[in-house]
């Protein structure tokens, strides 16, 4: 590895630009003469629309147009589908509703789009939206998945007759039941995995523009790639050629999995732009962003695990409810079954596995992919089970894990996925050693002498990265000025692709990172087969695409160099940016520049070093790791402070340790946010009551513990760079490590589990609970200053 190549902690190239406000976000874009859009959103969780009066809104100052579902219907704009296909054991397919772009006759959650106003200014558009008069007839609503299963619960889709569109099972439970019956130990865990708001820093925004001259629409929006949204918008909704739609997402302030979808606002805005023959811009405020972006998590898991007398798992049964929201988002029901299903039952060998999933409709924002997308939920459940198993068997928490870790690779999971590599025990050993697990009891005693309760938790986890779309399209071009341009299908929305991809180019071509330029996020410019970034896929997919493209460049470069050095291609070597033939040598840059000159290359050769590669993966990869968390609880207030945090990761070959650590920090922050303070709360009337940062607790930088990070590198065997994803690992490890530590600290009070977020009030009640008979509040937490 050279100074800037693979494995070097190169600082993020993009940071000076982004930190100095030179980013190019959607809201930075404006088109001459643009209008502004504002959506009227449902104030009701569930209601019929008896009538709509648009007259006052249409007559309001500056208003160009007001649209409702009637206008979209008249133009034949179809509703939005869910892309997931599932069936029950008998083969009956999952029932799927369609979501209207703008509500038609009925609204099903607070914040659902009902009408779009287009006016000259944003203020005028919002003002006019308030003038739309709707005669509502409210209906009973239900926000909680367990409530929605009860007889007599309000039905989201009366035509379905219930709120569950499919009962999916991996197989009948007979074998697992039999094995469970013979188990020496049985442990049960019931978990509510709290609903989260993804909350990227950039609020939702979009600008749709119609170019009459070219007969072409452009959408600027904060997507995670844009190619799929382009195809959806063009082919499904507008019925135009795909190339007549352009989607641009230059800089994006966070994606987390929920900025890759074709949102109804985008459809309405591009359609409206075409209708008025101009441009329409829309910018959501934070609360509107909370309603518009899909939510994450929101599962209820009930599991039973059986172990033999040696503490080895013999059977596992999991029943999962996933709250879909009112409609099925693109990936909605996929979360537990495929998102989590790719790894479940996680790091452990389970001979008999039964898995049942019921997706449930409720009057809430739809749920979809959010950092980890089903894997944090699966890992959390398995780690709570392993802690329970330790408790039941009397084995230590690390020993019961050790006895059940998968140790032979490749390993085929009960769900049919093949884990290529890993060394889970070594990762756990490393993490425990770094965290000084051995001497923890001394620290517990010392804390106790000060009046504090201490606990320590360990969580092993596994991830799956690079799933779903199996290809990515990358292109690398050597420019005349000696620089290299990457046309990237992968899309950075904060991850640092510019840095890491430049390092790859440096590694393979010897060009300095400062001379590498990343072009992304514009469907007119990125390769045709571009997909984008989600599921921790860019190191493997984009990275391999760059490697292969660079190899093609070198292969062609060898021919050019041989021609220029009057040698034979076979006699030319290339290493560290230099072509050599005998005593002659030429730098990559010299050859690349010459290659554009038709008079200096072999006859018949196309000028230029400009090669693309559509990389097709063999398999996804399986990042994994182990986190150890140590907490100290102030029993008077219930405040738990993290006093030590260790994260050891196996993300395969490390391309840039700084970037990987950054991903781990961010993931841990999100995981601790879920575990400690985040909670998307709906009240009994279906109102979303934590829809601002005044009520929704976001983890803040100053509250984050110092995170000690380490690598347990086991190169991936199934991709050219040997990489495994890194983006979602932190969010998988942190919740079980934290809750495990908390439960350990509260062991003397009979606590065996605590649902997230584990707020100070919950902790305080666990300590003093017996004095009270009333219910705890749903909500939040606090810190003493």
């Amino acid at each position: 590895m050279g100074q800037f190549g693979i494995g070097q902690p190169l600082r993020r190239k993009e940071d000076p630009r982004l930190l100095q406000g030179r980013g190019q976000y959607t809201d930075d874009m404006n088109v001459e003469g643009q209008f502004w859009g504002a959506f009227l959103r449902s104030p009701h969780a569930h209601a019929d629309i008896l009538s709509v009066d648009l007259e006052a809104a249409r007559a309001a100052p500056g208003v160009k147009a007001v649209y409702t579902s009637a206008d979209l219907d008249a133009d034949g704009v179809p509703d939005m589908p869910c892309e997931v296909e599932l069936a029950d054991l008998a083969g009956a397919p999952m029932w799927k509703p369609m979501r209207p772009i703008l509500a038609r006759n009925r609204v099903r959650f607070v914040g659902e789009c009902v009408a779009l106003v287009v006016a000259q200014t944003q203020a005028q558009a919002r003002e006019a939206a308030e003038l739309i008069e709707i005669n509502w007839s409210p209906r009973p609503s239900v926000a909680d998945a367990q409530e929605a299963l009860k007889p007599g619960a309000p039905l989201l889709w009366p035509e379905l007759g219930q709120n569950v569109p499919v009962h999916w099972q991996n197989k009948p439970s007979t074998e697992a039941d039999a094995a469970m019956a013979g188990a020496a130990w049985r442990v049960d865990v019931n978990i509510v995995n709290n609903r989260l708001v993804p909350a990227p820093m950039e609020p939702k925004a979009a600008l749709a523009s119609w170019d009459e001259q070219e007969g072409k629409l452009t959408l600027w929006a904060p997507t995670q790639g844009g190619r799929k949204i382009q195809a959806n918008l063009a082919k499904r909704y507008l019925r135009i050629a795909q190339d007549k739609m352009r989607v641009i997402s230059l800089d994006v302030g966070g994606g987390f999995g929920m900025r890759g979808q074709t949102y109804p606002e985008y459809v309405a805005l591009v359609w409206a732009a075409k209708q008025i023959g101009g441009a329409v811009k829309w910018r959501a405020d934070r609360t509107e962003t909370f309603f518009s972006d899909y939510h994450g998590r929101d599962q209820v898991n009930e599991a039973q695990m059986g172990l033999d007398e040696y503490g080895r798992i013999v059977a596992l049964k999991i029943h999962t409810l996933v709250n879909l929201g009112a409609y099925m988002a693109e990936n909605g029901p996929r979360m537990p079954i495929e998102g989590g299903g790719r790894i479940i039952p996680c790091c452990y060998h389970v001979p008999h596995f039964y898995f049942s999933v019921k997706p449930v409709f409720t009057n809430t924002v739809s749920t979809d992919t959010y950092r980890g997308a089903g894997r944090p939920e699966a890992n959390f459940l398995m780690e709570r089970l392993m802690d329970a198993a330790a408790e039941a068997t009397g084995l230590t928490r690390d020993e019961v894990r050790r006895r059940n870790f998968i140790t032979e690779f490749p390993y085929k999971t009960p769900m049919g996925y093949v884990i290529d590599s890993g060394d889970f025990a070594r990762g756990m050993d490393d993490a425990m050693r770094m965290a000084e697990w051995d001497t923890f009891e001394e620290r517990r005693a010392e804390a106790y002498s000060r009046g504090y309760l201490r606990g320590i938790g360990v969580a092993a986890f596994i991830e799956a990265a690079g799933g779903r779309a199996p290809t990515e399209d990358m292109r690398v071009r050597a420019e005349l000025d000696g620089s290299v341009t990457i046309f990237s299908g992968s899309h950075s929305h904060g991850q640092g692709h510019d840095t890491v991809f430049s390092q790859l180019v440096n590694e393979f071509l010897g060009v300095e990172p400062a001379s590498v330029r990343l072009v992304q996020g514009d469907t007119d410019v990125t390769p045709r087969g571009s997909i984008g970034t989600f599921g921790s896929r860019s190191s493997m997919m984009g990275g391999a695409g760059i490697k292969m493209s660079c190899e093609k460049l070198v292969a062609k470069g060898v021919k050019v160099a041989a021609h220029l050095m009057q040698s034979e291609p076979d006699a030319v070597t290339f290493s560290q940016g230099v072509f050599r033939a005998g005593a002659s040598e030429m730098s990559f840059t010299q050859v690349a520049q010459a290659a554009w000159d038709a008079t200096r290359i072999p006859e018949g050769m196309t000028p230029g070093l400009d090669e693309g590669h559509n990389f097709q993966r063999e398999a996804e990869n399986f990042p994994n790791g182990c986190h150890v968390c140590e907490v100290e609880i102030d029993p008077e207030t219930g405040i738990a402070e993290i006093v030590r945090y260790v994260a050891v990761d196996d993300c395969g070959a490390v391309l840039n340790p700084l970037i990987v650590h950054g991903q781990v920090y961010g993931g841990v922050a999100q995981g601790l946010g879920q575990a400690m303070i985040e909670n998307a709360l709906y009240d009994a009337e279906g109102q979303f009551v934590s829809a601002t940062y005044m009520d929704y607790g976001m983890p803040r930088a100053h509250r984050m513990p110092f995170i000690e990070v380490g690598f347990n590198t086991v190169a991936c065997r199934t991709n050219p760079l040997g990489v495994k994803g890194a983006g979602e690992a932190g969010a998988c490890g942190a919740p079980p490590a934290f809750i495990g530590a908390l439960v350990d600290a509260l062991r003397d009070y009979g606590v065996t589990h605590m649902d997230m977020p584990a707020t100070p009030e919950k902790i305080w009640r666990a300590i003093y609970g017996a004095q009270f008979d009333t219910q705890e509040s749903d909500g939040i937490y606090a810190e003493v200053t």
Partner: protein
Amino acid sequence: MHNFDYHAPKTLDSALALLRDKEDGKIIAGGMTLLPTLKQRLAAPSDLIDLAALSEMKGVRRDGNGIVIGAMTTHAEVAANGDVQSLIPALSHLAGVIGDPAVRHRGTIGGSVANADPAADYPAAVVGLNATIVTNKRKIAADDFFVSLFETALERDEIITSVRFPIPERAGYEKFRHPASGYAVVGVMVAKFGDKVRVGVTGAAGSAFRASDFEAALEKNFSSEVLLGIAVSPDDLLSDIHCTNEYRAHLVNVMARRAIAAA
């Protein structure tokens, strides 16, 4: 945000005249509470009357055995003021734990007190330190000022010009902070003036109040231990999505004891 007319009067009199004349005029100080309400379209005043130009309403000065803080003084200025730091360190500490730096550099004591948010910090200081609210018309005693949730004794055409804090012998403020908003879930100011003790509580109820049981016990023995046996009734305390009234009642006791320890 709805449209409004903006005024930046140069004198208190012209501010008052505007406030009287405009149909639905509203004072704006730091805007930290008012602006979000406007942006969320929850309020639509016809006119905004900005007090920013009234320099006589800014700053801190010593006044006999008290400290007078101009209504337009920001939280950051109070926190950093040398006199406040040396004479009422608890007040400086309180101002320094309001919200975040941006809020502290915009938000004002006048705006905070006038707004009477049940979770705001200053009300604990006003009540606990027995401050006097000085307006263009009169002086209002702390015990008469906070009426209920977001409601004070202020009349429509009344502007707070300053707040006067007597200097206590000892005082301490402790806050249980809501990590989403930064406000006080419970905040307690305990102050000792000779043989008198005052305990001001914010966050726990609809408006700041005095914990008189605590005061009586502390006047006999100013130590945190005496509070251990005195339970706070949860009956009139707030219960919301963040915390129950029982937890708040418990925290009032804990924060009071810690405030004494810090005093």
